[in-house]
């Protein structure tokens, strides 16, 4: 009987812990929503979503999210344009071209990159890449969107490479054998058969890379110059949504307009990454089929 009770207890725990993940996602959403709604009680929703200036300490304060959103968008587009060709290209090399021993070395190096903490890359951006870009491109400051994009591209590479590589390897062998049998070269097979068949998985890799870049905080806070204005190009200082939350949260009074505004920015981030992950998940599921 004693055994029965303890077994019942542990099985209840197991069933409850299955719920826990859902509870976390829902409660993160609800907490963000609750504080965002507090903002919209005192600040116009439209002014937040379409406002062109973010001036939290001016009088009256303005919380227009557009400059921050565009900051995130610019940096993300820059990073993805750099990251995707490099990531998918090297995934193709690792999956289809490299001999076994080299494959092993390359994969370990990519894992090493994945392990480097973002704050270390941000530090390298400050001491080396920023000054380097300033001199090379003759800019006013090296702390700009481009520095952020380059470092974020670097950071997102492991995600893009490993998921693309999985997708390429997952293409059924028979596809390749059929192509070889018809006299196609390895490159023709890779380019015209394997790559298109792996396209869902590669789209998922790109989406997850985008999610990684949009959500990254420390690197952009350290190297993009922290200037919340609408960016005209990647070569000027800007500020992303993540960096705004991280940089300003410490200065706000709990329960103030500014405090709630930062949660509203957090809510936007949450919704964006939720959608991106949802799409990536659908692509991955399609790729597995």
């Amino acid at each position, binding site marked *: 009987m004693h055994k029965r009770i303890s077994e019942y207890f542990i099985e209840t725990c197991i069933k409850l812990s299955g719920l826990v*993940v859902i509870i976390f996602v829902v409660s993160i959403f609800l907490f963000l929503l609750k504080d965002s709604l507090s903002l919209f009680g005192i600040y116009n929703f439209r002014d937040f979503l379409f406002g062109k200036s973010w001036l939290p300490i001016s009088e009256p304060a303005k919380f227009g999210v557009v400059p921050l959103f565009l900051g995130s968008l610019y940096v993300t587009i820059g990073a993805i344009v750099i990251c995707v060709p490099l990531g998918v290209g090297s995934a193709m090399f690792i999956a289809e071209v490299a001999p076994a021993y080299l494959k092993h070395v390359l994969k370990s190096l990519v894992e090493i990159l994945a392990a480097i903490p973002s704050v270390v890359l941000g530090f390298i951006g400050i001491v080396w890449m920023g000054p380097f870009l300033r001199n090379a491109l003759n800019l006013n400051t090296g702390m700009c969107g481009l520095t952020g994009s380059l470092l974020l591209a670097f950071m997102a590479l492991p995600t893009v490479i490993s998921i693309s590589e999985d997708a390429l390897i997952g293409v059924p062998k028979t596809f390749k054998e059929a192509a070889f049998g018809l006299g196609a070269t390895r490159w023709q097979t890779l380019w015209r058969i394997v790559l298109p068949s792996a396209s869902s998985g590669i789209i998922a890799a790109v989406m997850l890379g985008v999610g990684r870049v949009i959500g990254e905080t420390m690197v952009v806070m350290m190297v993009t110059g922290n200037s919340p204005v609408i960016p005209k190009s990647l070569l000027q200082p800007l500020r992303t949504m993540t960096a705004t939350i991280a940089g300003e949260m410490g200065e706000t009074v709990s329960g103030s307009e500014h405090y709630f505004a930062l949660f509203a920015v957090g809510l936007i981030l949450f919704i964006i990454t939720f959608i991106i992950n949802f799409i990536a998940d659908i692509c991955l599921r399609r790729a597995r089929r």
Partner: protein
Amino acid sequence: MNAAKIREKVAFAVLGLITLLVVIPIMLTILYVVKNGAGAISWEFLTQSPRNGMKEGGIFPAIIGTIILIIGTMLCSLPLGILSAIYLVEYAKDNFFTRLIKLSVVNLSGIPSIVYGLFGFTLFVMLLRCGTSILAGSLTLAIMSLPVIITAAKEALESVPFSFREISLSLGASKWQTVRYCVLPYAIPGILTGTVLSLSRAAGETAPILFTVAAFYLPRLPRSIFDQVMALPYHLYVISTQVPNMPAKLSFATGLVLIALVFLMNLVSIILRAHYRKKKQW
């Protein structure tokens, strides 16, 4: 050699070049930090507190703080992660609810780390009144590492052959006895591998601990789980952005210690994995 062959040679060379473009910066990054930081690493640097506005002395409290946070995170996330994975693999039926859990795991892993910081701040620091403390920080990091641990534990449990369960059940063991004695022992190494890996990521995170636990400077080590701690990633952030005239050598050395700690944890996980593969007999 025909045109197609030549095109293949060129294409593969381009792919190789792209791969070099990826790989060389990785090696240069590591070399750069090691070259500039190794000189400042000394026994004193590893065992003393910072002095003179961080510009002298060592990073001992930050190292200890990070280790405490790693342990705290593990204590909170490992049991929960294993139980959730057991539910998903052994108990869950293939229905809408289970799909919802799996989707939640995917989405939890995609939430930006700074949003975890916000959530941890409102829930643990403010609502549950933990204050900025080791407890609040560990819980925040634990929720963040949960999806990785669940995914790793799930894979480990799924890799245990189905026949193990059939035999145990056919001998009259209950569901839980089967899981406890015939499945879990064989999945533990795989679970640990994934856990160490996810903890190494948590150790390097800065954004979630910004408002939940990290302290700029503390003169003494923490005494309870309600104290703040210094942490390596936050320390590196502070000294590289907010301390004027900081000797670069010390920043590099801090970065090097952080990287070394994270790599050490990765190494442990690789060794665990290798050991596990060798012992595997099915």
